[in-house]
């Protein structure tokens, strides 16, 4: 438990300003703090919640908001797939509870930790649910009185970017990972400029990982470095 809570702090730090900002926005769109908390607890996906509130404000219908949410959050399919490698032998009901907390942030953090000694699904589950609690609380707090708190204090807006940058460094284990990241980044930037929405995340990631797989098969790593796949398992 304690390891999970300790590991989760960068995410929590990053969620507070975003949660407060979301709460303020939702409150301006006419949602009560309770309504904001209910949405955060049931959905737990920041960017899609921002979009939903904007669509609500514009008078969009339930079906179109739900469909948009599905499209925006489909990227978690890939993240859960990558996490599943580390969750063999975990009971179905725990997996069901774990799935609820798979976000961009918890995915990246847990995946990096799973490669270290002494990290297991219980700690990962703690990360998922501690960060969820912070998200629900800070969004509801934002709707209550977030406007009173100064925005952009102490560079806190950069907490999640800082965390993602370090987690990316953790993933650059071999040359093929660096190459895959470069392809994904270039493809994502190009696609994001051409198509609205965030489908570029899934498209660029699938493209880059597939290209990386072909490159690894075509030009295997020199004998000095390990073959990547096996290192994925504990």
């Amino acid at each position, binding site marked *: 438990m304690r390891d999970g809570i300790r590991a989760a702090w960068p995410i929590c730090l990053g969620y507070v300003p975003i949660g407060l900002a979301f709460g303020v926005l939702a409150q301006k769109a006419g949602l009560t703090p309770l309504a904001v908390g209910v949405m955060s607890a049931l959905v737990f996906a920041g960017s899609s919640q921002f979009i939903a509130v904007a669509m609500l404000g514009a008078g969009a219908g339930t079906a179109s908001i739900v469909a948009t949410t599905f499209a925006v959050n489909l990227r978690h399919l890939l993240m859960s797939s990558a996490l599943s490698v580390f969750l063999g032998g975990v009971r179905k009901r725990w*997996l069901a509870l774990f799935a609820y907390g798979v976000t961009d942030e918890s995915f990246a953090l847990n995946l990096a930790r799973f490669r270290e000694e002494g990290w297991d699904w219980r700690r990962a589950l703690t990360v998922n649910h501690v960060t969820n609690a912070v998200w629900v609380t800070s969004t509801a707090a934002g709707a209550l009185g977030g406007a009173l708190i100064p925005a952009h204090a102490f560079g806190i807006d*950069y907490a999640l970017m*800082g965390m993602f940058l370090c987690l990316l460094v953790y993933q650059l284990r071999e040359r093929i990972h660096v190459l895959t990241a470069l392809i994904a980044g270039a493809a994502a930037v190009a696609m994001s400029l051409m198509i609205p929405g965030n489908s570029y995340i899934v498209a660029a990631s699938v493209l880059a990982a597939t290209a990386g797989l072909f490159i690894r098969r075509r030009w295997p790593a020199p004998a000095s470095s390990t073959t990547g796949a096996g290192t994925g398992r504990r």
Partner: protein
Amino acid sequence: MISTDYLLLCLGMGLVTYVPRWVPLFALSQRSLPRWLEEWLDLIPAAILSALILPALLTSGEPRQLTLWNNDLIVAIPVFLFALRTRSLGGTVIVGMALYWLAGKVLG
């Protein structure tokens, strides 16, 4: 109070968000995967992180446009180097926040 319509909206959003998070865990974790799929999944995290980070640093606005000079990007370079050198998650977060705060003061 919360209306039934609003509750239904949240339940619908929750369901379509939850299912893609749950299906791979349920379907993939209990079996051994073919080697190519395992290798492919091994590359996915680096790809996703890069696909999340780079557009956030290099583009802004709606519709998005390329912005090659902004505080997010300028700060990211030393922060990335710091992470490469120290491999410290907590340190990187703190240094990132400090530099971003500083950049806001100095560069505006």
